[in-house]
């Protein structure tokens, strides 16, 4: 490959990285008449580790459900590239969703299937891999999350942390372009939480995936996030967006500072 070709590929990759991957425009989310968040507008770029943060009950998971197509917004748009997700034809929506890998808060492993079967199901449905190849992929994905050898276990036989890791293995089984992770490290001991954060960074680097994480764990936010949005339950909208470290350094709004310093904002002042 010539130098110019290399340069072109490099430029293309750089361009792709700065292109908006997901755009949320004036999104309002509500359950019937009960407003949860309004006027949400932010952009997630390709390769970002984007954090949706906010206090408990502010609608972080609900926003995630709107991003992954589980709940229709009351108003506004979610764009994947140029395509408005909720205005697209069902086939187009399905095509976009095929690029998602989702880790649910509870792991959401299919309880009647073993770990191996949980990871294998999407492979069997969407690929033509032979049984041996499927076994190899299962083994690889489970070893990536530190669960090698647990193929025959049922979800009920695993601890909370193991369920989350298994959920992560299933989420990345089809090598998705976007990983959505709902509270990946909540409820885990500090070392398991740290390992999950490391794993997320590793996966982002190695798969080149965009990662969208819902969390309020400050350690994770600063460890993995390079872009974020902060939701507020009283204002019922976003009160900040950007790199969490920059927010911490530059923001003056006490709500933002208090959130990012575990309420020690006042002491800092």
């Amino acid at each position, binding site marked *: 490959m010539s130098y110019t070709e290399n340069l072109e590929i490099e430029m293309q990759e750089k361009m792709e990285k700065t292109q908006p991957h997901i755009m949320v425009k004036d999104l309002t989310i509500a359950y019937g008449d009960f407003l949860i968040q309004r006027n949400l507008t932010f952009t997630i770029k390709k390769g970002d580790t984007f954090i949706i943060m906010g206090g408990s009950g502010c609608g972080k998971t609900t926003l995630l459900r709107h991003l992954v197509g589980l709940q229709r917004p009351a108003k506004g748009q979610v764009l994947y590239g140029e395509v408005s997700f909720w205005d697209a034809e069902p086939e187009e929506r399905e095509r976009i969703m*095929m690029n998602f890998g989702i880790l*649910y808060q509870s792991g959401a492993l299919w*309880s009647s299937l073993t770990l191996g079967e949980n990871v294998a199901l999407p492979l069997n449905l969407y690929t033509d891999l032979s049984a041996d190849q499927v076994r190899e992929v299962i083994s690889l994905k489970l070893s990536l999350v530190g669960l090698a050898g647990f193929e025959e276990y049922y979800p009920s036989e695993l601890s909370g942390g193991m369920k989350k890791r298994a959920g992560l293995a*299933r989420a990345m089984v089809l090598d998705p372009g976007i990983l959505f992770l709902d509270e990946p490290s909540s409820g885990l001991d500090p070392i398991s939480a740290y390992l999950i954060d490391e794993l997320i960074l590793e996966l982002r680097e190695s798969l080149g995936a965009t990662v969208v994480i819902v969390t309020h764990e400050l350690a994770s936010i600063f460890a993995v996030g390079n872009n974020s949005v902060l939701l507020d339950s009283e204002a019922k909208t976003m009160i900040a967006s950007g790199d969490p470290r920059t927010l911490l350094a530059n923001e003056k709004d006490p709500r933002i500072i208090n959130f990012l310093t575990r309420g020690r904002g006042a002491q800092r002042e």
Partner: protein
Amino acid sequence: MLKRTEDSLAQISFSRPHNGSLLITIAGEWRLGHEIPSVDEIRKEVGTGLQVKQVSFDAQELKGWDTGLLTFLINVIDFCSGRNIAVDKAGLPQGVQRLLVLASTVPERKDTKLAAVRVPFLDRVGNLAVAFWRGNLEMLEFMGEVLAASARMLAGKARFRLADLFIIMQECGVQALPIVSLISILVGLILAFIGAIQLKIFGAQIYVASLVGIGMVRALAAVMTGIIMAGRTGASFAAQLGTMQVNEEIDALKTFGISPVEFLVLPRILSLFVMMPLLTLYADLMGILGGMLIGVSMLNLNFMEYYNKTREAVSLNDLWVGIFSAGVFGILVALAACLRGIRCGRTASSVGEATTSAVVSAIVSIIVAMAIITVLCHILKI
């Protein structure tokens, strides 16, 4: 029982060390469940004499305290803030002071109270009618999804695991045999017993075989098996799917592009559609056996006599009607159970509601369907 002395009584007394200042002396045990002075005493004291601008406390004689003292103090603070009276908490124990600070750190949110709106009668009727209409639309939508999924299955395109289908068939078929046996034998026995009492009067005991045979084969075996399946398998389907909804397992299927109707509902409907007629056939035999027990033991009929009379009375048409009804009931039970399960909310109580609702809807639909089939058979002279 703890004996309380006069010293341990929660008491307050007042003094006015300076102009505009009220000192409240707190003494004794201030605990929940003990008799605690009311804020009204402070209201009375403040209302008499010179105007009070500051309230302070002396707790040197306080013997013990818990939430009882805290709630009293919060009421005092609320009362004072309403009258613009300053409250000096310095005289209170350190622990009490810290808890009072903690309780007032986050101010009470005013928009959290749910407005107690009295809905007019006509509104309520309207809401119920809309909810009923929405429920029907939901059911139609679900049936449409099931029909589309069935069409995909017939075209060989439906996505579900065959292993799941066989496991569900085993659960709702073979594993239901003991309960179906027991209920069917007893129904046959009861039917024969009641018939025998009447028929014996006319010396027509032999017709007990016809009564039990036709009754079981044409209707009762299918209805009883349907009701057993509604209570046993229908409840189980609704609870399984409801729990999957609570655990986000159904969301996980959707986001992998797998239709929950194809993957979860179709195998369940197919299983009951196949197993119900088989179980009904088995229930027919068990019911006839139950009738035979009465015939042989109480009516002095011999075994062959009873058997021949049953063969003579029961026609193939009766059998087909029973089998057809069983297939219909199987579909109805599975549809009702899966609909309730898949539309279940995300709490433990909604799983319970889904299960109850599934069983009730399944039983009601079985009875309604039986009535329709009976009328149709009468019109078509089957």
